[in-house]
């Protein structure tokens, strides 16, 4: 890990830092939205790695901690707009969990630009590309996730 981070830092200094972003997306809206971006041949930066879940309601906030611990430089969580949830209320439950989690992480001192939540519907391929590009650019500005990587664990 530590060597990994050093490499990353060297890269940032050279301005060639390629952050790793993990995106937790719901199957029905955002995953489909990302599909639409593809079928419409829209272009966005390649630093994002999608993990598909049935619903944002399934997303345990500790997935996000895991992602950071495993070396993600940023995390994007995206699902259906309120009212559109395939499971009617999954995203409402998630929304509260995310709100509290975000407050907590902010209070702990994590840079909030590393953690983006969004609603992207199956029809919003364009929005998907914008959200992804923005997160990546913000994280590129911040550089590698020093805070989590800097936590001793061996």
């Amino acid at each position: 890990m530590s060597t990994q981070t050093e490499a990353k830092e060297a890269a940032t200094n050279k301005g060639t830092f390629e952050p790793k972003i993990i995106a937790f997306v719901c199957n029905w809206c955002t995953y489909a939205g990302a599909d639409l971006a593809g079928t419409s041949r829209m272009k966005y930066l390649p630093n994002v790695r999608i993990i598909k879940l049935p619903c944002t309601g399934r997303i345990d906030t500790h997935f996000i901690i895991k992602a950071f611990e495993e070396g993600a430089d940023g995390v994007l969580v995206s699902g259906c707009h309120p009212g559109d949830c395939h499971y009617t209320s999954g995203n409402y439950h998630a929304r509260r969990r995310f709100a509290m989690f975000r407050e907590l992480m902010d209070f702990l001192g994590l840079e909030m630009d590393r953690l983006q939540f969004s609603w992207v519907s199956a029809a919003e391929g364009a929005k998907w590309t914008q959200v992804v590009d923005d997160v990546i650019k913000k994280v590129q500005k911040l550089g590698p996730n020093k805070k989590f990587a800097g936590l001793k664990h061996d």
Partner: protein
Amino acid sequence: MIDIIRQKAKELLESKKVDVVIGYGKGTLPNRTTPIFITDPKDVDKLEWNEYCLNDLAVYLRHPSLKKYAKKAIIMKPCDVKAVVDLLQENQIDRENVFIIGVACDGMKDFESGESLAKCLVCSGHNPSFCDEKIGESKVPDLPILAEFADIEKYEQMTPDERWDFWKKAFSHCIRCYGCRAVCPLCYCDRCIVEKTIPQWISSSAHEQGNLSWGIFRAMHMAGRCIGCGECERVCPAGIPLTLLYKKLKKEVLEQYCYEPGKDPDAEAPMCHFTKNDSEDFIR
């Protein structure tokens, strides 16, 4: 006051209304009180009440070693009662099996230093509300609930980096004794997630990463539930200011969902309910 408490305990035991009275007794150190369990009316004089009754006895309502007593009476400070309310709300105890003796409280003191507990200086309820028997009356004026949150502002003012360094250092001393979990009246899981191995959510080693991870996990589980008894912080040998974290979330839950834990057992718990217009300005 203590006589009324003892009298009530005697009554309850003699009338077989309860099988045990959970209360405070004399400890083995100066000023120290200790939890005691009275089952024989003759022993009620062992019960004590003074400004050093620190423990939140609610933790014993679900404690395995007291399972054998179906009906329990419990002596509680007004703030402790909130834990019972949470337990009721979370389906952990039956109302009819608990007799709450709420005792008015002017504030408690640390038995080592003799100083008032921080939580008592910002107390918003010196007299018991939710209980079966009220004892005594406190003349100490109640503060508004917001007074509790005064001390987190300082940290909210810090820069993220300062906050990170603060917490990193604080948790770096954690030895993962899980004392915080053991004394918490609301940590009642039979198998804590930290003991889960598939997947292993949290490293069991006491290194910075595992420690912070544990801190975050527990804070999330306390969101909308922690009643601020402060037992976790009192027991922590590493002196981690845990209540700060939980208080921050308590404040957010109050501000965003107008919910205060430990008030009403029939209230909708904020982390498993929602309203369609919950704030989401952080979501794009």
